[in-house]
């Protein structure tokens, strides 16, 4: 046998996986040994096949039934995505999306070696999909006959009258053509790449994905999908204003951005700036949900008088005075005084929030946040004591954070120029994704801190974290959301925009953090005592021990649970409907069925919503498997 290089091993596994590739006889043998090995097995197999057949037929009959009003979904695509975001400013949605798409391309370019897919494998997919379409065409029952008023005809016995099988097949000729084309393309590729020299030829996965997306977008230019568009509360049904028509250009731009981002990422990957660009792209990912939502989508109407008199001076004051304080705190002769100052600052910062609760003295919210951040920076300061370069790092980092926080805070507090049609300016999938992303991004660090607190050797931290986690876990999410939608407005300036949303984000983040903490704790418990001792013995401080040794291993161990938590956070955003936000599911469940044109049309929308939820979660789960395999290297 020739040597086993990884590629040929991988190929061999694929050959085992794809039954089409095995000789006919062995398929039969496989069937006999696996599905028909004895009577009981054979009966189970047949029953299973029957169940699968009935289910497939049921789904197909449902989807293609004459009673389905898919037009309700097509017409409301925009409502499903962004609800009532006004048409006049819709370009903002595209700009936000374009930023995300470009960043995704960039990250894909910088981070990953995506590898290749053998063309033969691709060919089997083509053939398989072609075959599946053909199967579906045959399995679906012939259509029900209609009378002139569009009512279904039934026979004298009361069952529905259907067209003949032959007529049904003839009606579906376009589907037959699609199946045939796919199958033929697959078969041709298959035979051209089955010779020994060519069977290992691969295409890069990135190009396959990119071309696939490109073809999907190209169809927008060819097929006028979505006969109507629902724009600013009215239906536009003239020719030329289909959904496909109004989105073909933006989607094409997205496609180009994705490609450009990828190329730039690839370039950076091979340049000397690779480390810096990785950090940079991560930072952009962290910032972009906040910035896109509050700045791009809301388009705040800045009041420059207020900016000049309050916002700017305050940001500068915190930035500069904080920088000065941190500079002092990182002096090498600071000693215990530094720790004491940091602790006092922390107490003061926390007290500000208590005071806010009781309304003792007024203070701008961003000042409270800034003091809290300054206290954390002061606590971190001992790690930056030393040469000028390290001290400068901390101080510049502080100035950067202050610039960002004050900029965002100003933006958030400024009323939007977007012409709102309802209380919340964004809804649908946009809102769902936004809440999910923010909750995950914010609850992650909080969850890690709670887990560390719960396993800490200080009883006070342990007690606080444990009781927090147990209380939150003992309460349903809905009650947390309701509680916060009542409580949070107490902490916010009167009449602040988006109070409801802020409440949701706070409550949901705190809720999700408790669950994340438990997952992380599971990982922490798997770290052996020896790891702690080794870290101590080489002289790491306990913060370094946690950051370099304990957490990386604990998080790696808990990837599956963490991803499970991320997925369930995403799905449970549908509970936002309960406190009055218009999330994705609610649009399908109550907005569309309330429209006079589509009174009571629910099932179609919900099916589409379910499929889109599934699509996102499937990607997350696939990605986590990839991640697990990659970081698994260190554990072997």
């Amino acid at each position, binding site marked *: 046998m020739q040597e086993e290089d990884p590629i040929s091993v991988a190929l061999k596994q694929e050959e085992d996986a794809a039954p089409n590739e095995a000789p006919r006889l062995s398929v039969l043998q496989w069937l006999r040994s696996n599905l028909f090995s004895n009577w009981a097995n054979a009966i189970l197999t047949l029953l299973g096949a029957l169940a699968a057949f009935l289910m497939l037929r049921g789904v197909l009959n449902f989807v293609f039934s004459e009673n389905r009003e898919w037009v309700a979904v097509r017409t409301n695509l925009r409502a499903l995505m962004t609800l009532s975001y006004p048409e006049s400013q819709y370009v903002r949605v595209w700009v936000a999306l374009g930023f995300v798409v470009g960043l995704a391309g960039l990250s894909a370019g910088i981070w990953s070696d995506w590898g290749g897919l053998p063309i033969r494998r691709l060919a089997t997919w083509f053939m398989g999909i072609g075959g599946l379409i053909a199967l579906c065409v045959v399995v679906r029952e012939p259509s029900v006959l209609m009378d002139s008023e569009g009512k279904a005809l039934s026979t004298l016995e009361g069952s529905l009258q259907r067209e003949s099988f032959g007529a049904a097949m003839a009606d579906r000729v376009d589907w037959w053509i699609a199946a045939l084309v796919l199958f033929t393309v697959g078969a041709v590729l298959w035979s051209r790449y089955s010779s020994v020299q060519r069977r290992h030829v691969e295409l890069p996965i990135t190009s396959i994905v990119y071309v696939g997306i490109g073809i999907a977008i190209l169809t927008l230019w060819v097929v006028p999908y979505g006969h109507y568009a629902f724009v600013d509360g009215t239906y536009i049904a003239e020719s030329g204003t289909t959904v496909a028509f109004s989105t073909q250009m933006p989607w094409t731009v997205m496609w180009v951005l994705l490609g450009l981002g990828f190329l730039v990422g690839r370039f950076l990957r091979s340049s000397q700036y690779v480390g810096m660009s990785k950090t940079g792209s991560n930072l952009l990912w962290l910032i972009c949900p906040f910035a896109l939502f509050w700045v791009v989508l809301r388009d705040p109407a800045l009041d420059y008088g207020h900016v000049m008199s309050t916002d700017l001076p305050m940001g500068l004051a915190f930035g500069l005075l904080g920088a000065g304080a941190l500079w002092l705190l990182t002096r090498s002769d600071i000693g215990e005084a530094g720790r004491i100052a940091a602790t006092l600052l922390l107490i003061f910062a926390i007290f500000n929030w208590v005071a806010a609760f009781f309304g003792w003295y007024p203070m701008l919210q961003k000042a409270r946040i800034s003091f809290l951040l300054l206290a954390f920076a002061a606590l971190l300061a001992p790690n930056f004591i030393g040469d000028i370069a390290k001290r400068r790092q901390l101080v510049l980092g502080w100035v950067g954070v202050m610039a960002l926080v004050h900029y965002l805070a100003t933006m958030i507090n400024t009323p939007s120029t977007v012409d709102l049609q309802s209380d919340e300016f964004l809804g649908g999938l946009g809102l769902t994704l936004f809440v999910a992303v923010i909750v995950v991004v914010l609850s992650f660090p909080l969850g890690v801190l709670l887990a560390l607190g719960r396993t800490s050797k200080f009883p006070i931290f342990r007690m606080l974290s444990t009781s927090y986690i147990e209380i939150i876990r003992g309460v349903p999410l809905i009650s947390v959301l309701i509680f916060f939608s009542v409580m949070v407005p107490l902490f916010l300036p009167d009449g602040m925009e988006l109070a409801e949303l802020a409440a949701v984000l706070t409550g949901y983040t705190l809720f999700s953090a408790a669950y994340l903490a438990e997952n992380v704790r599971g990982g922490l418990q798997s770290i052996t005592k020896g790891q702690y001792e080794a870290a101590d013995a*080489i002289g790491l401080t306990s913060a370094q021990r946690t950051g370099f040794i304990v957490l990386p291993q604990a998080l790696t161990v808990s990837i599956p649970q963490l991803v499970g938590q991320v997925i369930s956070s995403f799905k449970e955003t549908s509970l936002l409907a309960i406190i009055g936000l218009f999330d994705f599911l609610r649009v399908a469940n109550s907005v569309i069925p309330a429209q006079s044109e589509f009174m009571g049309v629910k099932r179609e929308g919900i099916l589409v919503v379910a499929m889109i939820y599934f699509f996102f979660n499937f990607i997350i789960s696939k990605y986590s498997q990839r991640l697990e395999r990659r*970081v698994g290297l260190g*554990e072997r």
Partner: protein
Amino acid sequence: MNIDDATAAANDRLADRDDMIVCVNVDKFYGDFQALKGVTATIKEGEVAVVCGPSGSGKSTWIRCINRLEVHQGGDIVVDGIELTNDLRNIEKIRSEVGMVFQQFNLFPHLTVLDNITLAPIWVRKKPRAEAESMARALLERVGIPEQAEKFPGQLSGGQQQRVAIARSLAMEPRVMLFDEPTSALDPEMIKEVLDVMKELARSGITMMVVTHEMGFAREVADRIMFMEGGEIVEVGTPEHFFTNPTEDRTKLFLSQIL
């Protein structure tokens, strides 16, 4: 020259050196159980001290008290002039001067060999990465596995892992190395490669305190052997004294079992 003279001569040779580790009446309790009962010993700079004794006699407990992995309740421990108290700064100082090698290696499985070694120099000693890496490669050369730098610990044999662990400790340029049964978890064919590294270290003049049952190693490189039982040091002497003319009955019994 008879054997007791040899012991005396060895004591003389060490007498004018500085004290590196001084333990005076060290007591250690686990709950009600007293694991160390007034351990008193002095280890000189550059000395190689081997600690042996039956299982459960408190060898690990003692050696772990010296870099504060365990906290002693009574008596004093002074390492290189720094007394071990609850003062965090003293503990940090001592830990960066004392290297420790464990029975179970305790390498960091998520870091490459190179990162395992450079972590502490970069973050504790604040060395530039390039300098730390070149030192790490030199240390890997010294322990005989320069080609394994980019691998993960899980991809190495036990003997190689233990040598990486030794290199990791040496990267902090410690003045004292503690070894707690460094070869007990190894297959016989790998014991030698680790012992060879340790012998080379012993000759280089670093202070070493080694808990081990490898009597061949003790005989060859130890300046003194300390025999522990029941949380006490029962007998101390040069290898010649220890193997040919032990005075205590308990030592004789132990040696008859192990040799």
